[in-house]
């Protein structure tokens, strides 16, 4: 009997010592390779490809407008700008890899844009869009200004492209759309090159693994860009008063809600693992949570999160398309939307991340 005790203790001791301290690999049985393959092939790359298509149209329509600056052509290029802006909402959460290297997100959508600085750029004609100081003078918000904000009426705006400084305005518009397309091409080329296989192969669960990076970017996008950027900041959630000047699509005015809803839809689709191009769903966060049978307060966490997404949509439906108006006339509705978004931030960031055991740090914990 004594010998058995000793033998057992010895075996346990060996097993215990062989699991190294610094490595807390979890093996939850969920196939991360299939997950990453689905994310790359059916969500991320199609989103970037779609954005590329929209940017191609935008470049072409901007070209038509600069060649023939008419009100009709202005309306066309505005239309393709909005389409591109919507397409951007789908790629924004995946700003890692090459996108992170080239400051893709900052160059595409830093707002409020600086009208005065853009005017200076147009006048001098010298600027380097690669500089950090130029983030708020380029991208979709800068296009918002040069297509919607130069004058009160369409005629007034077109006048800038036909007046004495027309060449300078045309050049700036062309440069803005060109750099957007160049940046997106860089990222997409990288994904279609070897980044995709690297991304899929990095299927572990360390801090630098693909699942971890994707989730962190997705959450940051939902928390900072959607909840705070599109709703919280302009609604004065982080300031002493409201800040209608901070809304997305400030000059076009009636697109803020469209952009918000598109971004929320994109987030929910990603959560559910929905293909970008079809209605089919594949592996994703919902499936992952269900696979782990994650129940919180008696309900599947994935159900709770999806119903909160629906709740957000309901609350957003109450809002005017024009957030500048909404904030100045009835900001409480903005705050209601914000609260709905906030609740899903905590479900995703606390409950989901806890359930998926995405480890932040390795350190001893209490035992007995």
């Amino acid at each position, binding site marked *: 009997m*004594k010998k058995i*005790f000793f033998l*057992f*203790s010895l075996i*346990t*001791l060996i*097993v*215990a010592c062989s*699991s190294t*301290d*610094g490595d*807390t*690999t*979890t*093996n*939850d*049985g969920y196939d991360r390779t299939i997950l990453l393959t689905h994310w790359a092939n059916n969500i991320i790359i199609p989103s970037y490809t779609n954005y590329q298509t929209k940017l191609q149209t935008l470049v072409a329509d901007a070209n038509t407008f600069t060649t023939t600056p008419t009100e009709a052509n202005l309306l066309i290029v505005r239309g393709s700008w909005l389409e591109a802006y919507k397409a951007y909402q789908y790629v924004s959460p995946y700003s890692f890899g090459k996108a992170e290297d080239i400051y893709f997100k900052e160059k595409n959508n830093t707002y409020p844009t600086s009208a005065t600085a853009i005017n200076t750029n147009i006048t001098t004609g010298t600027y380097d869009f690669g500089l950090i100081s130029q983030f708020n003078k380029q991208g979709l918000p800068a296009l918002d200004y040069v297509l919607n904000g130069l004058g009160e009426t369409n005629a007034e705006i077109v006048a800038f492209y036909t007046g004495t400084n027309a060449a300078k305005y045309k050049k700036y518009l062309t440069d803005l759309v060109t750099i957007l397309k160049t940046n997106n091409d860089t990222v997409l080329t990288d994904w279609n090159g070897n980044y995709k296989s690297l991304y899929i192969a990095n299927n572990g669960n360390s801090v630098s693994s693909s699942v971890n990076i994707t989730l962190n970017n997705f959450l940051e996008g939902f928390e900072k860009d959607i909840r*705070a950027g599109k709703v919280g*900041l302009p609604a004065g*959630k*982080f*300031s*002493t*008063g409201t800040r209608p000047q901070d809304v997305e699509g400030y000059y076009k005015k009636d697109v803020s809600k469209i952009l918000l809803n598109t971004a929320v839809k994109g987030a929910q689709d990603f959560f559910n693992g929905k293909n970008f191009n079809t209605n089919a769903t594949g592996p994703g966060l919902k499936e992952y949570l269900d696979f*782990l049978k994650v*129940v*919180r*307060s008696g*309900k599947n*966490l994935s159900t*709770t999160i999806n119903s909160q997404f629906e709740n957000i949509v309901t609350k957003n439906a109450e809002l005017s398309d024009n957030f500048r108006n909404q904030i100045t006339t009835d900001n409480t509705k903005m705050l209601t939307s914000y609260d709905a978004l*906030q609740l899903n*931030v*905590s*479900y995703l*960031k*606390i*409950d989901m*991340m*806890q*359930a998926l*055991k995405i480890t*932040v*740090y*390795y*350190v*001893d*914990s*209490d*035992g*007995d």
Partner: protein
Amino acid sequence: MFQNYFKQYTSAATLAFFRLAFGLMMLLSLIRFASYGWIQKFYIAPQFHFTYYGFEWVKPIGIYTYLIFIICGIAALFVALGYQYKWAILSFFLSFTYIELMDKTTYLNHYYFITIISLVLCFLPANCYFSIDAYKNEKIRFQTIPRWTTDILKVLLAIVYIYAGLAKLNSDWIFEAMPLKIWLPDNTNIPGLNYLMDQNWVHYAFSWFGAIYDLGIVFLMLNKKTRNIGFFLIVVFHLLTRILFPIGVFPYVMIISSLIFFEPSLHKKMLTIIAKFFSTSLILFENGKQKVQRFTPIHRFQLGFLGFFMAFQLLFPFRYLCYPDELFWTEEGYRFSWRVMLMEKSGYAEFTVLDKNNNKSIRVDNSHFLTPFQEKQMAFQPDFILEYAHFLNEYYQKQGFVNPEVYVSSYVALNGRLSQKYIDPTINLAKEYESFKYKTWILPFNDTIKGL
């Protein structure tokens, strides 16, 4: 009866063995801690440290923090050797406690356990047997010492186990198998074990066995007949926790410490083996001399202090009864109470700093000021949230804010409950102060966890 108890004696080998084992384990733990780069990571790199109430002055001292660890390591070695023991154990107690007080982010019950043990060791004659001190100085060499000097360590171990067991008698642990239900799955790559850890009945079995084990193990160890089976359970239990959770060296510390419950003959055997290794023997220390318990004023004071200290240890963990709402939610009275592995808690805290007069505002990016580990700990502990809010208040005053107001939007999830709002977002935390009083700005839990 009391007088009689203090006239009972036991072999000095037990306490000497404990001293040697404790010193070596501490030395190895410190080396391990340093080798992981944790001194830099936890004490030097962070620009802000979470302090203990009343010990705000205990802070890392930049690069010299390494010096504290070196002193602590050398002291541990000297304790093991029994060389200049009184000074060594006092230095160890002070340096180790200083290290633990520097930042409560790294708080562990086991660190507190070590602090307590080393404090009590300052009063015990652990160097009168198998030590360099006793080897050199015949006057302090004794074969037997008062029995209470080893019993007191057993009582401290018993408190840890039994209080940990009592704390497990709550509805989350017993009826929901929480948080083990969250923790046990997926924590190991060992086939078979992996499958078992996914099973619901295993979660309950572990919870129930854990509670019974904690409550009963001391009694198994006290009884000579059940001691072997008790020790076997200790080894299995702690190694299992070692496999399943990242709990560092503590399983080994607890296994080795529990050897103190055995008869002195075992300790003598072990010391003999060690002595042989150094080509010496225990004969020198088996001198038949008894360290008689004296009752001079200074000895009375020592005994009185230790008596008071033990009473404090017994009562302090129950201080949570003085606070309303759920202990696990507010954590008021949670630390220093042997509540281990009871909660899976995580949170999210977003701070806004406002200067209303000058219309200035900022949404704080926590990663600017805190390490990921600090941010994680801060997000679900009210005293951390408050201290951080005051730090932000001072920081933004320096940035030109006048009378900054600090608000937090925070959510916390506890033991499988969906996350919910934690701190009242309308409260200006800059105007709230740390105290032992109930923190009224913690929002209600809206649920009950029954039990101790």
